[in-house]
C-alpha cells in the first residue's frame, strides 16, 4: 500500500516536472526536483535509523546472555595461562631429557675408552705378548672395569628412566591443548553469531548460546587457573582417600 502511494506520488511529481520543463519554467522544475530528492533522503534516514536500532537491540541481547562476556573475562585469560603452562611443561621435559643425555654421554664415552684399552691389552695377552707384571696390571684393571661397568649401567638405566618419565608431558599438554581447542571453537561460533547479527542475515538462533563444552572434566591442574575443589598433590589424594577409609 505504502509503496503504491509512494509510486503514484512520484508519478505525479514526474508529470509535473515534465510539464514545467515543457513550459521552460526552470525555477518550478528545480523546486520539483528538490522535493523529490528530499523525499528520497527521508526514506534513507528512516531505514538507517531502523537498522541501527535493530543492531543495537540484537547486540545488547547477545551481550546479555553472558557467553561472550564470560569468554572475554575468564576463558580467554585462562586459555593464555594454559598455553603458557604448555610451553613451560614442554620446556621442562626437553631440559630434563637433554640433561639426562648430558649425564649419560661422558659415562658411555668413558666405558667405550676403557673397553678399547682393555681389549688391546687382552689381544696382546692372547698372542702371549704380555709379561707377568703387565698381566697383573691388566687383571686389576679388568676387575675395576667390571665393577664400574655395573655401576655405570645402573646409572644409565636410571637416567633412561628419567627420560621416559619426562615424556609424560605429552599426555598432559595434549589434554590442556584439547581444552583450548574447544574454547577456540566456542569463540568461533560466538563470532559467527555476531557476524550474522551484524550482517542481518539471520537472527539469534536457538538459545543464543555458543556450543557448550562437551568435555566437562577439569583436566590437568594448571597453575593460576583455579578449579573449584581441586586437590594440589598426590598427598592430598592419599589423605582424602584415607579419610574415606582407604
Amino acid at each position: 500500500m505504502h509503496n503504491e502511494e509512494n509510486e503514484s506520488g512520484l508519478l505525479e511529481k514526474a508529470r509535473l516536472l515534465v510539464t514545467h520543463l515543457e513550459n521552460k519554467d526552470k525555477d518550478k522544475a528545480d523546486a520539483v526536483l528538490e522535493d523529490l530528492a528530499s523525499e528520497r533522503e527521508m526514506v534513507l534516514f528512516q531505514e538507517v535509523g531502523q537498522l541501527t536500532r535493530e543492531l543495537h537491540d540484537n547486540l545488547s541481547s547477545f551481550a546479555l546472555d553472558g557467553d561472550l562476556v564470560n569468554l572475554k573475562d575468564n576463558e580467554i585469560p585462562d586459555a593464555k595461562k594454559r598455553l603458557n603452562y604448555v610451553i613451560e611443561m614442554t620446556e621442562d621435559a626437553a631440559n630434563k631429557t637433554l640433561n639426562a643425555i648430558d649425564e649419560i654421554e661422558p659415562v658411555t664415552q668413558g666405558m667405550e675408552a676403557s673397553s678399547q684399552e682393555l681389549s688391546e691389552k687382552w689381544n696382546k695377552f692372547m698372542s702371549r705378548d704380555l709379561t707377568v707384571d703387565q698381566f697383573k696390571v691388566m687383571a686389576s684393571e679388568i676387575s675395576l672395569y667390571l665393577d664400574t661397568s655395573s655401576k655405570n649401567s645402573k646409572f644409565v638405566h636410571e637416567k633412561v628412566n628419567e627420560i621416559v618419565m619426562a615424556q609424560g608431558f605429552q599426555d598432559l599438554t595434549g589434554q590442556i591443548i584439547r581444552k583450548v581447542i574447544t574454547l577456540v571453537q566456542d569463540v568461533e561460533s560466538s563470532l559467527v553469531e555476531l557476524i550474522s547479527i551484524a550482517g542481518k542475515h539471520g537472527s539469534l538462533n536457538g538459545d543464543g548460546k555458543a556450543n557448550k563444552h562437551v568435555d566437562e572434566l577439569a583436566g590437568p591442574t594448571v597453575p593460576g587457573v583455579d578449579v573449584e575443589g581441586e586437590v594440589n598433590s598426590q598427598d592430598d589424594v592419599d589423605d582424602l582417600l584415607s579419610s574415606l577409609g582407604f
Partner: protein
Amino acid sequence: MKILVVDDFSTMRRIIKNLLRELGFTNLDEADDGLTALPKLKGGSYDFLVTDWNMPGMTGIELLKEVRANPDTAQMPVLMVTAETKREQIMEAAQAGVNGYIIKPFTAGTLKEKLDKIFQRSAG
C-alpha cells in the same frame, strides 16, 4: 600377573608399561579407551587394570563401573592414573570401588608404592 593399561595417549601407555616392566611385570596389554578395554577384560583373564579417566568413547570411571558390575571382573584391582584432581571426582572413583588413585604427573616411586599397597591388601 596379566595387566591391562588403558589410556588414550599412547605415550602415557608406553610410560606406564615401561614402569611396570621395570617393576617386574612383563605380561602387559593395552587399550586406548573404555570401549576397547571392555571386550579385552571380558575375554581375557586379566589380573589387574590400570586406567586413565578422561578418554573418548568410554571414560575410565565408566569402565570402572562396568568392571565392578560384571561378576567375572568385579574383584579385579583397578588403579586409576589420571590428571583429574577434583575432590568430587576422587570421591566418585572411591565410591565406584577404585583400589588406588594416582594423579599425573606422577613418579615411578608413587606407582610402585600404590601397587605394593594394592597387592598387600589383596594378599591380606
